[in-house]
């Protein structure tokens, strides 16, 4: 690990100013550090200054009607501990609990998960199915980007130099589910995962698949096949078929393409049925 100094700004403005004052390749942003420390240790990043977000007022979770806004530096454990998240966004509850262990989730954050943009992220597919948006602050002000445009590839996001993720906004409570396949059910990396959510406002399904590079993706053909509410068995079959056929699923060192495609049908079927129980 290269030597670095730790800068701990007290306000968002100060944090953005500190980032802006240094060449981008010399600074790194630290939230929980559960991804960043590996990049610093492994020499992938050679930051001379590490900017800690721990004093920023972003450890928040606010419901406004059916809209949920989660501050970027809130530890993941606080999301699963919110009773309304469990009741109104069950897929998000499940996805958060799929990340690492309790002790990891006491430090790891939603902002960090988006910032790392891992193809195996358990949160990005669920955020896609929930049509979540990322609120950003930077030297030229604020902007909002849908998760679908924010996450580009592993370690690649739409973040501009000196920009920070402030919060993630989920527009409505949705019947939702998240299912994955791994070697061990907990505390392991997902080989393949399916996130589904039903939008009451839009009367439509959202379906995302994840686990393979370059990034988690939505599959509109599957959404159309599921129809406007309770899908029949043939609807489900067609939806699974369209993912198996159309999704750009590939192999990597964790799993083969064929294995991943085979996992689509059982994961999708069970995930949609789990929501069906809530729709009733």
């Amino acid at each position: 690990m290269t030597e670095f100094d730790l800068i701990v700004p007290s306000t968002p403005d100060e944090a953005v100013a500190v980032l802006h004052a240094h060449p981008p390749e010399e600074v790194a942003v630290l939230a929980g550090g559960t991804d960043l420390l590996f990049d610093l240790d492994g020499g992938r990043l050679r930051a001379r200054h590490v900017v800690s977000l721990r004093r920023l007022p972003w450890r928040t979770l606010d419901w406004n009607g059916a809209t949920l806004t989660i501050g970027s530096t809130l530890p993941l454990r606080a999301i699963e501990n919110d009773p309304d998240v469990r009741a109104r966004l069950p897929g998000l509850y499940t996805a958060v609990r799929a990340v690492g262990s309790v002790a990891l989730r006491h430090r790891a954050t939603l902002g960090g998960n988006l910032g790392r943009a891992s193809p195996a992220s358990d949160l990005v597919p669920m955020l896609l199915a929930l049509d979540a948006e990322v609120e950003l602050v930077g030297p030229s002000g604020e902007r909002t980007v849908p998760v679908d445009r924010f996450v580009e590839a592993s370690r690649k996001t739409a973040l501009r130099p000196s920009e920070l993720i402030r919060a993630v906004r989920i527009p409505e409570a949705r019947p939702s589910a998240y299912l994955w396949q791994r070697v061990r059910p907990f505390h392991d990396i997902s080989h393949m995962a399916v996130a589904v959510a039903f939008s009451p406002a839009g009367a439509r399904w959202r379906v995302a698949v994840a686990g393979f590079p370059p990034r988690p993706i939505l599959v509109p053909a599957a959404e159309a096949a599921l129809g406007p509410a309770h899908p029949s068995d043939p609807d489900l079959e067609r939806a699974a078929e369209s993912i198996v056929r159309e999704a750009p699923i590939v192999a990597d060192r964790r799993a083969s393409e064929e294995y991943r495609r085979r996992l689509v049908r059982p994961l999708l079927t069970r995930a949609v049925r789990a929501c069906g129980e809530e729709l009733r």
Partner: protein
Amino acid sequence: MTAPAPPRCRVNGRSVDLGDVPPGERLLDTLRWRLALKGTKEGCRTGSCGACTVLVDGKSALSCLTLTREIEGSAVTTIEGAPDDPEGARVRAAFEAVGALQCGYCTPGFVMALAGLLKERGRGGSFDELLEDLGGNLCRCTGYAAIVRAAASLRTEEAEP
């Protein structure tokens, strides 16, 4: 003008000056090498085994993935401090009652993880959730049956594992 107060944290009730701690130092190394508290174990150093689990402000944390300077102002409890912590003491007693260890390397991590769960959840919650919540702690001796028995004995509804 007076110089700013040096950064500090508390470890098992004792105040520790963090002024000399380099920004990259992990809490695990601060505990074991700076403070000579060898009860906290290093297993993987990658967040994967839970052997290094301690409590930071009452919540379980992986000391191998925590920068010491980041917990400035916080209170750390390690296995050495468990007897003086109400939940830590209860978990320790439960492990002793069942004999929930073989080589003992994973034990400090399990005890602190369970103490954190007791503080957070009390004695309720389903048995399945308890197992999920212990998923981050590995026992290389595979002595899980007794560990799970000890954990289950801390719950209100005595479920047969």
